[in-house]
């Protein structure tokens, strides 16, 4: 005799409280209850069902049938038979996500202050372009001698300390690297990447490239515009171009070195953090703090060697050497600065790779 689980109880439900008179007579009292004990419906029910819950207030339960409103949303799984593209397309997706986020919605959401600052810096970086155009238009040779393309001005466009390497480029780098990797730790979005066929190298490589490209748009594009503005407004011929192009390429190389260094240090800081604030502030502290420290030591003790710990000064020293401007660091060779830059980047990339390798898929 297999009774179903919801077998109705022997005593019918009633809306009235159950009284002793309503219970059937019994011949044997259950264990633990003697004949002298007061006979109440509650006790008998308890004895019968072995529970004290819900027996006291038995009422007729009348649950109305649910009213059908009709089905508006029908859940239907749709299959997809498309082909997945190879590795380069996945990497392009990461790059595109970060780059296009600066310009339009639907991609990586860069904050509005960051976008505004990038715009301001881009426009400010065009100051020498504007002045070159102006000098060409009004034909003022004095103005052109100050703002026109020269070794010093090319150097100044990329590596001049004030305002570009004090207010523009390090701040841009700090704003860009702030959340690029740290937000993946913060929001757990690293799981989205690594549960897909994305390697750690691709992940960090594309993030690096996207941050570097945004900086390059500001530094290199304005540098190129500056150079071409000179050609266009001053009517420079091939002779001038052949003469100055190596100088321009050396400046491009210096700019690439600067972008790479700021990005690698910034991303390594981003990879050790879960917030946006720390990487940005730490990058500014490293770039500007070491510069200030080295400057103070140089002035007080006439020792320039501390500039070797300053990324900016090392970049400037190497830049001066390859562009060919007057060197401002006299006490040691520029190769020391180059070695220092290599060491800084090596350390930064080591930290970056180690931290990215430890990023988890299952939990962070």
């Amino acid at each position, binding site marked *: 005799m297999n009774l179903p689980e919801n077998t109705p109880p022997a005593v019918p439900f009633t809306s009235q409280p159950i009284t002793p008179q309503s219970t059937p007579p019994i011949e044997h009292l259950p*264990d633990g209850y003697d004949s002298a004990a007061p006979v109440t419906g509650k006790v008998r029910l308890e004895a019968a069902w072995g529970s004290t819950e819900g027996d006291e207030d038995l009422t007729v339960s009348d649950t109305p049938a649910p009213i059908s409103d009709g089905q508006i949303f029908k*859940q239907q799984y749709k299959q997809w038979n498309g082909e997945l*593209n190879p590795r380069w397309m996945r990497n392009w997706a990461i790059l595109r996500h970060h780059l296009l986020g600066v310009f339009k919605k639907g991609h990586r959401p860069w904050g509005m202050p960051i976008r505004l600052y990038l715009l301001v810096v881009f426009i400010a970086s065009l100051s020498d372009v504007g002045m070159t155009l102006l000098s060409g238009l009004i034909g003022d040779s004095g103005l052109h001698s100050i703002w026109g393309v020269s070794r010093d001005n090319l150097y100044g466009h990329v590596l001049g300390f004030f305002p570009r390497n004090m207010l523009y480029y390090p701040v841009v780098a700090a704003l860009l690297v702030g959340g690029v990797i740290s937000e993946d730790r913060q929001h*757990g979005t690293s799981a989205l990447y690594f*549960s897909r066929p994305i*390697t750690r190298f691709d992940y960090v490589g594309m993030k690096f490239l996207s941050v570097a490209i945004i900086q390059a748009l500001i530094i290199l594009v304005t540098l190129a515009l500056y150079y071409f503005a000179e050609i266009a407004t001053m009517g420079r011929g091939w002779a001038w171009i052949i003469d100055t192009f190596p100088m321009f390429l050396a400046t491009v190389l210096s700019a690439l070195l600067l972008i790479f260094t700021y990005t690698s240090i910034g991303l390594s800081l981003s990879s050790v953090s879960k917030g946006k604030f720390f990487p940005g502030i730490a990058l500014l502290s490293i770039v500007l703090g070491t510069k200030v420290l080295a400057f103070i030591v140089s002035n007080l003790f006439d020792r320039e060697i501390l500039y070797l710990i300053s990324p900016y000064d090392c970049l400037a020293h190497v830049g001066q050497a390859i562009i060919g401007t007057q060197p401002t660091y006299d006490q040691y060779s520029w190769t020391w600065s180059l070695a220092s830059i290599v060491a800084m980047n090596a350390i930064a990339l080591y930290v970056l790779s180690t931290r990215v390798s430890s990023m988890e898929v299952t939990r962070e």
Partner: protein
Amino acid sequence: MQDDLIIKTTNLTKSYGPHVALNKLNLSVPKGATGLLGPNGAGKSTFLKTILGLIQTTEGEGTVLGLDIRTQGDAIRSRIGYMPEYDCLNPDMEAIHQVRYSGELLGMNPTVALARAHETLQYVGLGEQRYRNIGSYSTGMKQATKLACALVHDPELIIADEPSNGLDIAARNYMIETLTNAVKTGNRSVLMASHLMDDVERVCDNFILLHKGKLAAQGRIEDLKGFDREIEIHVWGGASRLEELMISRGMNVRREGRVMRILHEQEDTTSLILRCAADVGAQIRRMHEYEASLEDLFLSIMENLGYEVKSSEDLLASPSLARKVDAPEHMGGGSA
């Protein structure tokens, strides 16, 4: 039969220094829905990372969808949809673009990924909410978005890690229905790691139970529940006498007050119970087949394995009388 397996491992071992996270795991997971069970530290996360091809195994081998977990991790991850337990969404992005980006990360063309994102968000019930920022979503909506990210490329295997984590009853039911629908109508396979046995029972046909990196049991949930059925009776009068008599007649009895459960070993067990009741003059007020929930079975297995679990649901928790529910050998258990 081999073609029906989505995951197969042989002596799969993963060690972190002296700590053995997975210990000679031999698994055969068929197509369909499978629940991955186990207490904290059982090795579930390590197992998931291993089958995703994210970590190198120390020893042993395995295949997922016929691909080698040691050498074809990228190909495996292209064909798997992974829904992580924890947050993995950018709160400043709209759901539609988050899902689209998930598709692009798999190599989908941006236009195709966007179209597919619309479809999957519609499927998980966020069709009308897809242009809202994820930061403004409820937990249930975030879980649904995570599922949409996993489904965007129509994977053959969906790995859902605690899919109903933190959801209220309505959202939980919806999530379970959605996963079930993907299995039943979408013909996809699901590997679902969860602590909620009820959810696993509703979605999955099969289960894997890990304990301290070892396979404790695996097989069909129905088989596990079916091989050890009991009859539950509610006795009025003479319960102690009835219990003694039934035990003396060789029946396997557990008792809590006036409720007893007798192992349904023979076809005439119900007749024997009624005869015993008549002999001692006890009244049986209710008698029905008792089907243990998966949670009961899980708790019992864990107790047998030495894992102390307390649950209010464990009606008959007396350790001395707790029945043995080791999985039989043909289901992969027995030796744990």
